[in-house]
């Protein structure tokens, strides 16, 4: 009992302590929205939004302002909402802080009946009260035998469900209060979905009246075109102004307007920061950013809200800025009162940049060289060196190939290699990204000859092409809209099938991608033939190919997705978190954590001619990228504003190669230059040797038998049918090829050569994943979806066990002994630290390690243990 009341007391006290009552301060001016009120039906109302400007800074004073209608026979104020009473004209006086604004009010049509509209009100309420959500009656099979369309996307389903289905059990027109659809959500009878309706809510009034008026389910032709939100852009909430009223105006296709503030559905992306009530009043709770979303039927809008709370002791220290990246990051940090961390040291930078750009750790030699370099521009030089390396091209290509499902299982007979090689060369030559996208999206032809056509070979269906293209190039997860309008965005089914129409004529004929002259995408419910997305009517008249038109739309400088999505991917690659996160889930209800930064980067990307390396260089050289992962007293709680570097587990490929580098078992790629010609020479020598032996072999018994066998094969028959002069030459060439192919030595040599050329020994450099148990354990994707989320980032118990007890780690440590044993103890420790951690060991680390090595009777065993120990440090396993 006692604790119960203590709890309440706390609740009451909390209200006082927050001091959330905004005192009437004196603004320079007030701005009243709307500036004129038109009420054109008996039940019409208008939600006012009043903004006070305090030294130029806008704050919401809607709740504190007073509202007085001159003629109460025409309209009345209910709080900050103006409601129709009778026809005529009057004025509304809005006053706050000594300022006053007069708003003309015009009221019409109040004598006409104003019945509840099923299409525009009842359905909106079912969404607002949560009935039509995906986890309740909006799920595909409904709940408890009662099913509604998700967020009311299909009124024809809802009308039957509510009135006829279940033997008319849900509505009771003669006695509305007896309706099951009211009694259940009121909890007058048990309802698994809980309390969803209160009698004092507008929702109850609307539903009760709709039932009373005879459950009319007419569906007029008019549609809601869009909703308009006030305030139009984001707001900063800071004490004492911790509230913000939203007004929502719906625009209909017949040109009419209606305030839907009371029946719209509100939601927040981060309820710890700000919440919003059922009347659209936002309340701030703690420092941070949140998106407040507003849904009315199929229309959806969001506004970002920033809540600023003064942090005791915070003082902005004007940290150095390298370029505009830092300036824009700092703006946000300063506003929300975080301090960026210090710049990281050289070894952290070297390790971080190498892993980000090439996926590989630098060798001990490279580390030593960089750490002892005293030039002031060494970081910039390193950035350029790595950007121009083959390792960079291959590792970047791997990331693209992950998304485009480049795997031998999908792209057979070497096509995975062909496509991969194209991706590597595009990264190597820094192909402008718009050209890159166009080359892929407009590809056609034989997939063995046209590498980019494999994009379509990997995903044969129109639907998958739609979803994958939207996800990769538009950062949009559009799958939901295949069956219903998007629950959290303005994307509709029509949009989905318009994008699908782009690929409706792209056909797979065997392994060749061809363009058919017919083929359409149809809306599954209306059967409307969709016009391809991105195509202008002029392009349509000129019969421009659909994909070409789409690619043109996509890569035009003012496209809202293309540049943003790619710079966000680059940012996320380097920073461990996108400015929009998840990186392929761009929508207004998931806003960027720093919109000006994303905009500026996208602008820079466009201006540079879609130069990826330029953006990579820009970010990598910023103080933001180079900041330490160690938080300070004023940024520990920041997770999205980039005040400090994010500590990340190495990816599966990075880890596998890092183990190779640390154990010195994986030769550095620079050695390939030496080893490749050597193997090539061996191949040539062996080929020459066999070729010289060929004439003799041909006349041997074995050779004769082989000829006889070959003559019986279809190919043999075909060749023997040729004219004699051609026949002999071709026959010989074919037999020689077969002779060479059957030689084991030559085959092994060629395989070795290919392994080196394709860099098959490097997980970060291969054209397609090896898919070992080790890499799978560490989250390597199988390349089955276009989502970066297919790669598992969160550490698992299995990973810890694999590193501590697994066969791979053990074998590597064991084999690595031979690479270290020859060093004396002092040197051994230094080499190991440089190889694994890119730094020199500290004095203490040196003495502990030396002590360990000398005290053991079995030195090899001790060396192995030391290697294993370093491999299992967090410093090794994580990028920091």
């Amino acid at each position, binding site marked *: *009992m*006692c604790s*119960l*009341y*203590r*709890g*309440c007391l706390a*609740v009451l006290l909390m209200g006082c302590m927050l001091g959330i009552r905004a005192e009437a301060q004196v603004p320079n001016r007030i701005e009243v929205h709307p500036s004129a009120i038109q009420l054109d039906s008996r039940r019409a109302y208008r939600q006012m939004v009043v903004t006070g400007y305090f030294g130029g800074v806008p704050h919401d004073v809607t709740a504190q302002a007073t509202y007085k209608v001159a003629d109460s026979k025409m309209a009345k104020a209910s709080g900050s909402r103006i409601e129709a009473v009778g026809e005529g004209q009057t004025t509304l006086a809005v006053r706050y802080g000594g300022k006053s604004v007069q708003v003309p009010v015009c009221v019409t049509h109040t004598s006409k*009946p*104003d*019945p509840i509209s099923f299409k525009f009100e009842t359905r909106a309420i079912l969404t607002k009260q949560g009935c039509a959500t995906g986890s309740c009656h909006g799920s595909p099979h409904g709940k408890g*035998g009662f099913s509604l369309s998700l967020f009311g996307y299909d009124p024809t389903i809802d009308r039957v469900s509510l*009135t*006829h289905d*279940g*033997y*008319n*059990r*849900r509505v*009771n*027109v*003669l006695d509305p209060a*007896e309706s*099951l659809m009211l*009694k*259940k959500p009121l*909890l*007058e*009878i*048990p*309802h*698994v979905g*809980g*309390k969803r309706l*209160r*009698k004092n809510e507008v929702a109850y*009034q609307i539903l*009760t*009246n709709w039932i*009373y*008026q*005879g459950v009319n389910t007419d569906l007029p032709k008019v549609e809601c075109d869009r909703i308009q939100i006030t305030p139009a852009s984001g707001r900063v909430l800071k004490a004492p102004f911790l509230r913000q009223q939203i007004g929502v105006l719906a625009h209909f296709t017949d040109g009419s307007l209606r305030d839907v503030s009371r029946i719209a559905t509100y939601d927040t992306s981060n309820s710890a920061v700000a919440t919003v009530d059922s009347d659209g009043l936002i309340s701030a709770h703690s420092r941070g950013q949140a998106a407040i979303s507003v849904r009315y039927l199929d229309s959806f809008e969001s506004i970002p809200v920033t809540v600023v709370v003064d942090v005791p002791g915070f003082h902005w220290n004007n940290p150095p800025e390298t370029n505009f990246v830092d300036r824009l990051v700092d703006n946000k940090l300063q506003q929300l009162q975080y301090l960026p961390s210090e710049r990281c040291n050289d070894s952290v930078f070297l390790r971080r940049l190498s892993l980000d750009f090439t996926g590989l750790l630098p060798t001990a030699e490279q580390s030593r060289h960089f750490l002892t370099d005293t030039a002031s521009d060494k970081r910039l030089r390193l950035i350029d060196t790595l950007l121009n390396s083959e390792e960079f091209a291959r590792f970047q290509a791997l990331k693209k190939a992950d998304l485009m499902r480049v795997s031998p299982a999908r792209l057979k007979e070497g096509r995975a290699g062909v496509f991969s090689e194209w991706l590597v060369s595009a990264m190597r030559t820094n192909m402008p990204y718009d050209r890159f996208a166009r080359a892929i999206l407009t590809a056609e032809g034989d997939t063995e000859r046209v590498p980019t056509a494999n994009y379509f070979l990997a995903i044969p269906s129109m639907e998958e092409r739609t979803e994958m293209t939207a996800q990769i190039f538009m950062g949009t997860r559009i799958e939901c809209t295949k069956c219903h309008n998007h629950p959290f965005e303005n994307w509709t089914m029509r949009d989905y099938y318009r994008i699908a129409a782009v690929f409706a004529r792209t056909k797979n004929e065997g392994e060749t991608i061809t363009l058919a002259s017919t083929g359409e995408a149809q809306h599954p419910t209306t059967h409307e033939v969709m016009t391809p997305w991105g195509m202008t009517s002029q392009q349509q008249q000129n019969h421009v190919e659909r994909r070409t038109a789409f690619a043109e739309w996509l890569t035009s400088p003012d496209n809202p997705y293309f540049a943003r999505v790619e710079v966000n991917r680059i940012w996320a690659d380097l920073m461990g978190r996108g400015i929009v996160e998840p990186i392929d889930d761009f929508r207004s209800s998931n806003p960027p954590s720093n919109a000006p930064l994303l905009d500026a980067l996208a602008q820079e990307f466009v201006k540079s001619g879609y130069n990826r390396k330029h953006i990579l260089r820009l970010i990598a050289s910023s103080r933001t990228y180079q900041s330490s992962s160690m938080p300070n007293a004023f940024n520990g709680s920041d997770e999205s504003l980039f005040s400090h570097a994010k500590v990340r587990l190495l990816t599966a490929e990075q880890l596998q190669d890092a183990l190779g580098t640390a154990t010195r078992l994986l030769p550095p790629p620079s050695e390939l230059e030496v080893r490749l010609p050597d193997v090539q020479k061996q191949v040539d020598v062996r080929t020459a040797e066999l070729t010289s032996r060929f004439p003799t072999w041909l006349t041997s018994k074995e050779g004769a038998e082989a000829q006889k066998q070959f003559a019986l094969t279809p190919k043999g028959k075909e060749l023997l049918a040729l004219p004699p002069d051609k026949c002999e030459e071709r026959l010989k060439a074919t037999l020689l090829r077969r002779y060479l192919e059957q030689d084991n030595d030559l085959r092994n040599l060629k395989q070795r050569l290919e392994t080196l050329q394709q860099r098959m020994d490097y997980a970060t450099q291969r054209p397609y994943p090896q898919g070992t148990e080790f890499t799978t354990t560490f989250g390597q994707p199988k390349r089955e979806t276009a989502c970066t989320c297919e790669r598992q980032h969160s550490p698992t118990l299995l990973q810890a066990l694999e590193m501590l007890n697994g066969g791979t780690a053990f074998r590597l440590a064991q084999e690595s002994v031979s690479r270290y044993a020859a060093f004396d103890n002092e040197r051994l420790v230094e080499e190991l630290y440089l190889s694994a951690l890119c730094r020199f060991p500290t004095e203490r680390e040196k003495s502990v390690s030396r002590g360990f090595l000398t005290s053991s009777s079995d030195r090899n065993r001790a060396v192995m243990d030391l290697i294993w120990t370093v491999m299992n440090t967090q410093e090794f396993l994580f990028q920091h």
Partner: protein
Amino acid sequence: MNRLLSTFVLLITASVPLSARAEVSFVRDIAPILLKRCAGCHGEKANLGGYRIHTFQYLMKAGASGRAEIVPGSPEKSTLYQRIVTPVEAIRMPKSDDALSSAQAQLFRRWIAEGAKFDGSDTTAPLKGLLGVRRHPLAPPVYRAPVPIMALTFTPDGQQILVGGYNEATLWNVATGVLVRRLERLPQRIQALAFSPNGKSLLVAGGTPGEYGEVSRVDFSTGERTKVYDTLPDIVLSAAFSPNGQQIVAGGADGSVRVYDWESGKRLWSSKVHADWVTSVCFSGEGNLVASASKDMTVKLYEAKTGSLYTTYNGHNRQLGRYAGQAPVYAVQFAAESPLAFSAGGGRWIQSWDANLAKNESGDAADMEERFARESHTQYLEHGFAHEVFALAVQDGQVFAASADGILKQFDTKTLREVRSYPCGEEWLFALHVSPTVHRVAVGSYSGEVRVWDTQTGQSVIAFRAQPSTSPKPASYSPKTR
């Protein structure tokens, strides 16, 4: 804190006039409030705070707090009572809802002070069942809006027709369409109406959706409810006589099927084997079996004497083969003196099958795949409706089907050919009855219309709105009723 609270409680209680002096009855006074205001969160399906009140036994048990919520004799120590009357909205029950009225709170206080006694028969029985038989209100004088017709029946002489209404059944003259008489104080919704073999009484079934079902007997001449066979926790959707008129069967939205002796009122058996609503029940033509159709896509057959499951007919839920399809079943009927059944609902067919053969074909789980693929003996009658069939009737070698298309169709049971199609407006047809004495069929629609046809000529006999009403349209909106 405690003292403060007690003072507050005293204030509350003092302000309520202590009018009724008789002891508070748990069943009469407390249980209805618990059910309406508390069971949503603390009921059979939900137990917030680990506390449930759906039976008296549970009500008296402690929730997650470990302390009993009710301390007999002491409202002050009973958390349940304290949580009802606290002024602090954050902890008041019902949570995020209007508070109980002070009169209701006072009932709780007195009941607890008087020892929190139980005056029912079984402390483990669901409270819902304790409430017993409802006394129904009078029907509204006129219907402001159409009430969907879910049941209708010709009088034995075929001259009048009795139609299910709102808290009543209305009797109409078939020749004129004039309202003859109203049988009032019946369940809110009437889902089944049937005359007893002697024509003197009526089997009436229905209820209030989601909370109450009733099977009762009504004297046709006086219109009085003379017997209530049973009450159910949800509406009864179907009820029917056995061929000899000695038993009745009922089933509904609680998923149960129950059989009673018509005269004694004794419940002979009940069964709950369906996974969803029971939509239609009947006896077989020979009277030895009972059939129940369900939204769970099956028809179950039971031994009429014992209620033991005879077999399950799965023809409406076939994964494979020519007649693959999954659809709820809304109607099942037998041909007279025969094991031949007709069933329909969603899907494209009325299915005609033999109860005994269906049992033979319904094997065990081991041969399920094979059975699914194999075509059964069932005859599939493609009805040609675009929407569901809600009612079937079999009479004199003819099967009638009423659909949500607003069309009634007549088929020959032997040839399975369509004999006739009767257009019945735009609205869904739910109710259907064929007179065994005159060649007439009647259907009732969602919009409250009755249409009567001659089954031999196909001529329309009459069509009228079977609604006590003065105006043909729903009354226009009046703000007073808000």
